[in-house]
């Protein structure tokens, strides 16, 4: 009898988060006073910059490990690789490719550590991966701030701190800035379209789509839904989970290199720290949840979230006269959206349980009537 629900209403209910964001953006865009051309250009730039990173979150979600707050680990691996490449003065596309190659073993190692830890903390993967990101951040600082110089040779003074060891707060990547984006780029109207970057992203999307239909992808989906059943069927649960985290970390490392070549410099001690949060928020804005996310969610999320990101500060400034309001607002929205997603996820888990009880009760109630 409940199946006669209005399909339109259901559509709204299932996509309430993206719809909310569309409304926010619709209100903010006219107030902010940005031209559509400018916005379009910005969105295309940011899409090229961030999409790869966000895509790296999809695989652990498939394996039932929730939002991978440990993607920061990959970001750190990417940064270390870029610092080294910058020091060796290998620029341009070769530099980017070399950095990617160097980042992979580091990501593998970090991903392995993260995966092993998460296997020891089943049922609370998210908080654990979140703490791991802080823990590894400490080790990252140890490496970059103290070991680079004395132990890992760093030659160029433009990168090194004046005291003789450690890396400066910013490392310039001017000589590889947007090289990936500019190669094969085409201009339509005022907007530059970084075709090669999009091609790389398209390749990852294709990989993810294909991956879902492979044996490993099938195993991950099985593990994600019921570890015990998967184990009884002979699937190596722990190994599969570790592989999913390693893949996510490696992709995050590659994504971070794409992100930084677009930005043109590395904020050595802060670039990676917020990236996880913004990527996760963007994915959730696109309508994903803790247990389900698609490539469509990634693209919708990256568009809406960054639209909000661009227009919020100036809208806030126009309304209140204080530019900081908008900055705080977008941070608040990022955290708020993650909070709401987590609450909905946990509440739904409990609701599913009580619903099962209710169904039994109804059946018995009927039985009792007879």
């Amino acid at each position, binding site marked *: 009898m409940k199946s006669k629900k209005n399909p339109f209403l259901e559509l709204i209910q299932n996509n309430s988060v993206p719809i909310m964001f569309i409304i926010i953006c619709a209100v903010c865009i006219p107030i902010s006073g940005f031209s559509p051309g400018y916005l379009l250009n910005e969105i295309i730039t940011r899409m090229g910059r961030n999409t790869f990173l966000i895509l790296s979150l999809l695989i652990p979600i498939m394996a039932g490990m929730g939002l991978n707050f440990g993607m920061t680990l990959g970001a750190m691996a990417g940064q270390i690789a870029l610092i080294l490449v910058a020091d060796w003065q290998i620029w341009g596309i070769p530099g980017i490719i070399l950095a990617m190659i160097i980042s992979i073993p580091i990501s593998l190692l970090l991903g392995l550590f993260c995966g092993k830890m998460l296997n020891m903390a089943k049922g609370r993967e998210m908080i654990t991966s979140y703490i791991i990101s802080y823990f590894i951040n400490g080790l990252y600082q140890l490496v970059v701030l103290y070991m680079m110089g004395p132990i890992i040779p760093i030659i160029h003074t433009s990168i090194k701190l004046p005291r003789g060891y450690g890396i400066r707060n910013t490392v310039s990547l001017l000589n590889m800035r947007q090289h990936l984006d500019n190669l094969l780029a085409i201009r339509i109207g005022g907007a530059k379209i970084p075709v090669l970057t999009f091609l790389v992203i398209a390749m990852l999307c294709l990989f993810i789509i294909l991956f879902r*239909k*492979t*044996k490993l992808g099938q195993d991950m989906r099985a593990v994600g839904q*019921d570890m015990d*059943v998967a184990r*009884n069927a002979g699937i190596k649960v722990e190994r599969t989970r570790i592989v999913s985290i390693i893949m996510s970390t490696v992709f995050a490392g590659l994504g971070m290199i794409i992100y930084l070549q677009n930005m043109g410099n590395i904020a050595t001690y802060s670039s990676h720290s917020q990236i996880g949060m913004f990527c996760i928020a963007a994915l959730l804005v696109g309508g994903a949840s803790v247990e389900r996310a698609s490539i469509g969610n990634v693209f919708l999320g990256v568009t809406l979230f960054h639209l909000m990101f661009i227009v919020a500060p100036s809208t806030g400034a126009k309304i209140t006269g204080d530019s900081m309001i908008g900055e705080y607002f977008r941070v608040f929205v990022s955290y708020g959206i993650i909070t709401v997603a987590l609450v909905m996820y946990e509440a739904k888990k409990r609701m599913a349980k009580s619903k099962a*009880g209710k169904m039994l009760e109804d059946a018995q109630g009927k039985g*009792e009537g007879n």
Partner: protein
Amino acid sequence: MSNEIPLLEIRGVKKDFFGNRVLNDINFTLKKGGILGLVGENGAGKSTLMKILFGMNVIRETGGYEGDILINGEEVNFLTPFDALEAGIGMVHQEFSLIPGFTATENILLNREPLKKNVLSEIFGDRLDKLDTSEMNRQSERAIGKMSVHIDAKMVISSMPVGHKQFTEIARELSKEQLKLLILDEPTAVLTEKEAAALLDSIRSMAAQGIAVIFITHRLHEILGVCDRVVVMRDGAVVRDALAKDADVQKITRWMVGRSVQSSREDVKIGPNKKTIMSIRKLWVDMPGEAVRNVDIDVVEGEILGIGGLAGQGKLGIPNGVMGLYHAGGTVEFDRQPIPLDSPRKCLDCSLAFVSEDRRGVGLLLDETLEWNIAFPAMQIQNKFLKKYFGGLISWRDEKAIREITKRYINELQIKCTSTKQKAKELSGGNQQKVCLAKAFALQPKFLFVSEPTRGIDVGAKSLVLSALRKFNRENGVTIMMISSELEELRMICDRIAIVSGGKIAGILPATESSESFGLLMVSQVI
């Protein structure tokens, strides 16, 4: 015929758990395409035998087994279930083992998917082989075709009716090419009548294709309908191995419960003039696996009322529902006062107490001391063991009184522990059970529910627990409702015994009745 090598031969199999003999010299054989019905009360050893046959880890962890298992005349010793699968043994468990978001096909071929090479797998290894979907569909259709029911191979498990989930499980076993022997553990428990009939047809057609089937169920008429042989187990031994055509429900029941002697107990008292202290009307309880439907029962003051029945028939649901641990409906009156359901507090306030069958999950604070475990409910419900300060504004734990009551019960029930401050998790099962009893006794209830008080404890502790209950009943006049899977135990201690079958009370008899009459009640309405 007789010199044909049997598919399965079980020869002198014995097994004990921690010195507790659960299987004693089991012998039987099963030929190719034969259907064998395996029956017995809970605890008769059926599931242990199947675990051995299926190479479950728990058997190896507890010291293996004695005797031989031969398949096609060759001795086998399975270290893991995968070895058993390899040798052609398939098993459908009582609990579903299915991935809810996968289709029937995906579940049928879980981890045995046919694969195709592709570019990725050439680079990254075999795990990136692509699933061969068309081959998957073909294989699952074929497996489903072996049964005489049709299920939609493309339907997602979570949206299937229960019966179809069961058939998916069976199809999964059938899809294994090497399958020679299929074990079905109570497969019809979740099926509707029509589905059950279809399943029996499927079993017949499997047998016709040369697959041997071991069929475990409590529904005796199904055994008679489909099996060629019945093996009856009791107390860890095969008591009867008969052709199905020579058996009937009465006979099997008698074999199952054994001794048809009348009990000669003289202390049974069923006072005709005693007042009813608790009356339960139209009780239903939503306890997963132990659902209760429409139960009416009256408990007489001062008696020990036993509740017996087979596992999963709802006997555990009765105390759990009345005490508010599971969602329940209906009316319960105690001492002419209505007891609200779904509220453990109200029940405890009315001087009811409950010793749960789930000792570790519900009965104990495993990480706390014995003192806490024993004194906690009495402290919270009746404000015992508390010192009041500032005119009752602050109620402080009275450690001394708590220690004393704990010591008293340690002595009374002979709880083996190092001190009153020992953690509950460090005790053995039997001693943990005694702590649970002490906890209930400390409440000084007027009415006590005891659920499976002797499950999983050794013989010494068993008799101590039973005599403590008896003493509590006879000396303090406390009415007890005791739930147990062991009929003999109920017959030893109770005054009357109610048998639950299919979530309903199948009948109430004096404890002196013969085992056979109880046995017939047990299987009367089995679902």
